[in-house]
């Protein structure tokens, strides 16, 4: 008998029974025909119970009145998906959410779809005619991401080899994973690195081995996440911190691209249409570098007209690229 069949039978049996069943009864039914000693059967039953509990199926242990007998059953009120009273717009929202990662190969894709099927069983999810929102980034290695998520959820140590940007060799690391994030399509995780003895950020693509989730004491966490940990501090590592929006800048757009004025990485303060049809937009800029790069992305269709410092920055970039082209 396959393990999956045994687990289904155990679930069915403990769910259907009207009174707690003791182990003798189970070994005569679910575990019948397995040529094992009674002790070994009992251990198998304990492992099966743990596995069901992992999945969220609670096997309740009931002591008899005199305490000499132990019975088991699965309480139905906790096993079955309860009825959740959802409004029509809530159904639409949950359906959209559950489909966000559909087919993207992240560890969220399959569970979210199963959650929807559980909700949909009592028509608690909306039908097909729901607006679609999709996340289409497929991680290069779904299994790796799955293992990291597992370690994060159970707070277990991760061991892997990692080649940091700018170094030639991969180094073995041991990390307590605190958080996981995706930025511009790439996955990262953050955690306490035992090698460097500080909180570090790791990009999944730079992991050169499998990751090993600490197999010891699977039911006990290896660490606790420090109370002050905030994933958002880690996500913004790229940008200089605390940039104050104190630079006012003007950009002139050619008429056909004037719609782009509202898409900038700075707050749009004012727009003015010039007599020649061009649009002059005024911004409050916190990150001058990022702003100049954005404006250069429109080529000759957008030109920064003030302040002089930003114009110089733009011209520097243009001269730089021309030098590189001339010099080779």
């Amino acid at each position, binding site marked *: 008998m396959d393990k999956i069949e045994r687990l289904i039978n155990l679930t*069915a049996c403990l769910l259907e029974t009207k009174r707690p069943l003791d182990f003798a009864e189970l070994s005569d039914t679910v575990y019948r025909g397995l040529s094992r000693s009674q002790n070994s059967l009992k251990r198998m039953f304990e492992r099966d119970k743990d596995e069901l509990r992992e999945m969220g199926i609670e096997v309740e242990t009931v002591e008899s009145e005199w305490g000499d007998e132990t019975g088991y059953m699965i309480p139905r009120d906790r096993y079955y998906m309860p009825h959740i009273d959802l409004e029509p717009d809530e159904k639409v929202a949950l359906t959209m959410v559950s489909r966000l990662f559909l087919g993207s190969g992240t560890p969220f894709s399959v569970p979210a779809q*199963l959650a929807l099927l559980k909700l949909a*069983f009592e028509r608690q999810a909306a039908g097909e005619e729901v607006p679609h929102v999709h996340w289409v980034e497929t991680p290069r290695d779904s299994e790796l991401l799955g293992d990291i998520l597992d370690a994060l959820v159970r707070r277990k140590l991760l061991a892997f080899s990692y080649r940091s940007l700018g170094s030639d060799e991969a180094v073995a690391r041991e990390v307590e994973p605190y958080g996981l994030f995706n930025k511009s399509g790439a996955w990262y995780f953050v955690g306490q690195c035992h090698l460097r003895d500080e909180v570090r950020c790791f990009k999944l693509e730079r992991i050169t081995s499998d990751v090993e989730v600490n197999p010891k004491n699977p039911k006990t966490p290896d660490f606790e996440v420090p109370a002050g940990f905030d994933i958002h501090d880690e996500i913004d590592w790229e940008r200089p911190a605390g940039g104050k929006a104190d630079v006012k800048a003007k950009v002139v757009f050619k008429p056909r691209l004037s719609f782009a004025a509202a898409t900038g990485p700075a707050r749009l303060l004012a727009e003015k249409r010039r007599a020649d049809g061009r649009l002059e937009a005024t911004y409050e800029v916190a990150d001058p570098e990022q702003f100049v790069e954005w404006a250069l992305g429109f080529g000759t269709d957008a030109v920064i007209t003030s302040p002089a410092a930003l114009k110089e920055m733009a011209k520097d970039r243009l001269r730089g690229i021309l030098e590189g082209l001339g010099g080779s």
Partner: protein
Amino acid sequence: MSGKVSERLNRLLVMVPYLARADGADVKVLCREFGLTEPELMQDLDTLRMCGVPDYTPADLMDYWIEGGRVHVMMADYFARPLNMTRPEVLSLFVAGSALLRSGVFAENGALDSALSKIERMLSEETKEELEKVISHIEVEMRAYEGNMREIIDEGLEKGMNLELDYWTFSRDEMTSREVEPLSLVCSQGYWYLLGWCHLSDDYRLFRLDRIARVRLTDNPCQERVRESFDVPRVVGEYKPGRKAHQVRLTFEGKQGRRIVEQWPAAQVTEKGDGTISVELRTRNLAWLATYLLRFGGQVKIEGPKELRKMVAKNADELLEAYS
């Protein structure tokens, strides 16, 4: 999605209730909803045939039959309703939900918030506590979905009405007007796109939201044919550059190179010992790249093709002219 024992078990405990309904369940729909091939579905069904309750006589086992393309199961009253949501399932709903809330696809304190808190209320205290810790430490960053065109796009998607777009094609540097059957909002590399069937190109197209200059709701309903037959990952997959693409080689210095690596997951990246990063990528169109590269100034060296070097030089010259 065949996988580990616990995954199969969870799947079967959701699937059996669907099969045990009076009218059974459609084979094709089952495969689609559960992400299975037909042989994988048959394997699951054969497993069920071996399962049941004591005394495990044929009358106690779950048996299935297929009639008119629908699967039916008898003798499974105890599995008449699905298993409660597992932790990974709740976690996934909350991770996706908070990404969509933060990016503004859903409004704060709206339908999504209240739906998620109804799910939260059914969890045990212990599970709730565990999940809260984890959820706040996972973030999927998406650019804000906003702008004044948003309402019109949403209306088109919800009502299934065609949209008329003025769209700036970055790669060809041209503005065109077209009628589009809106199919889905797509988030890729942090940007929002509208996926639609484009009547101008008679094909699926992705439109980046911040490059749509103008949008108008038309009176033309989407054609069912197009709506039904699309599949996002497949459609997006078609946007990989083909064989005709140009092979581009660039060398970046230091910090800029690092950012490029983050932005172009599809590029081939080699880190050299001297701190420079060599990037190789394929693109069908050089025009967009010739403008895009300007921002990197002296930190990029264009190794090839020659055509691209010429285009960048021309762009930089013209723009310097405009700045002086």
